[in-house]
């Protein structure tokens, strides 16, 4: 049966302004389905975004929404969560927004393990501002600031979040709408900081400079590079160059080594904070 997206959308603002075939629409739909699955009330949920193509997403959702400054979606969301710890927080962010301009906020939000869900839509470029290369542009690919090919190695957002201490980390692509929905749902259910990276297509800015200017070929490019995590474990490092490894990097029952876990947060941030307040008040 068809899903009733109209229930969650500001229909007077639809059709949205994203380019024809943009993957953010797919991610937004997956997120709305996940929200229905976990039965979140619209009044108890807040959507926060920074700047970029993804920052438009909360504008289309009929919930409590906030559009903030570049890269600072996480900081505003932390403020909301500290003031009202019982509310559900979702942050929509792009790869440039989360890992370049808000990179510091990103790793520190992971470290604190505050109960929020960050959805990073990774399209390998700064789409809205004119196609500058971002921290996730693969080596050798062209952008408007790297016209002869990019030389900077790229960030792995999932491994970064894992190292910084997030408690649920997963990656999927826009070609797999159902998997994305499942991962986002698990992120919502996780009590702690969850990062879901959705590898998306930007054929308008990234594709046009790299010979895939339509959504179909852009999506095909992502599909061809996709390797499941279980398969990637047995592969050589050279074969994994510029590949997209998908799967759940950290779950509640993760198979992490003990030393990897040694300085992780034991409690969720707002809980730990309220414990401190109680302790001080007793004195």
């Amino acid at each position: 049966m068809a899903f009733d997206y109209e229930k969650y959308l500001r229909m007077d603002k639809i059709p949205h302004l994203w380019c024809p075939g943009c993957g953010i629409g797919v991610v937004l739909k997956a997120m709305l389905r996940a929200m229905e699955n976990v039965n979140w009330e619209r009044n108890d949920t807040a959507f926060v975004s920074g700047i970029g193509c993804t920052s438009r997403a909360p504008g289309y959702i009929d919930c409590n929404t906030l559009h903030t400054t570049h890269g600072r979606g996480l900081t505003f969301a932390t403020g909301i969560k500290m003031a009202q710890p019982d509310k559900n927080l979702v942050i929509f962010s792009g790869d440039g927004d989360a890992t370049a301009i808000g990179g510091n906020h990103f790793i520190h939000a992971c470290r604190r393990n505050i109960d929020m869900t960050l959805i990073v839509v990774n399209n390998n470029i700064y789409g809205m501002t004119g196609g500058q290369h971002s921290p996730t542009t693969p080596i050798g690919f062209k952008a408007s600031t790297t016209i002869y090919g990019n030389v900077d190695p790229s960030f792995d957002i999932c491994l970064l979040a894992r190292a910084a201490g997030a408690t649920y980390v997963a990656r999927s692509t826009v070609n797999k709408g159902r998997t994305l929905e499942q991962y986002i749902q698990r992120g919502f259910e996780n009590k702690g900081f969850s990062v879901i990276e959705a590898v998306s297509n930007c054929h308008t800015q990234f594709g046009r400079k790299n010979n895939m200017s339509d959504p179909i070929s852009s999506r095909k490019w992502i599909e061809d590079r996709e390797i499941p995590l279980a398969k990637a474990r047995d592969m050589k490092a050279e074969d994994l160059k510029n590949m997209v490894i998908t799967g759940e990097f950290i779950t509640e029952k993760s198979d992490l080594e003990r030393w990897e876990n040694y300085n992780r947060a034991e409690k969720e941030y707002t809980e730990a904070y309220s414990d401190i307040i109680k302790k001080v008040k007793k004195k």
Partner: protein
Amino acid sequence: MSEKIKLPDGFRSWEADVKIGKKEDKVTIGHWAEGCKGCAICVDVCPKKVWKLIEAKNKWNGQLVIVDKPDACIKCMLCEIHCPDFCIKIF
């Protein structure tokens, strides 16, 4: 399905009797032409070639999709999940 399916305003609907495996079923495909930007993702993901790309006058890229073969639909919902513009509904 005895009850009447209610599509949102502006949706054009195609109805057909389909056979999914050995099961007889009814399908209603709804498409919102005003919001469709003609990205042709539905044409690409559909395993049964239900959708067809046509030229049309609109403010996007001059393309639009229509339902070509509604009776081929197997209700896999791929087009509904992957339409970025909230334009497709399958019942």
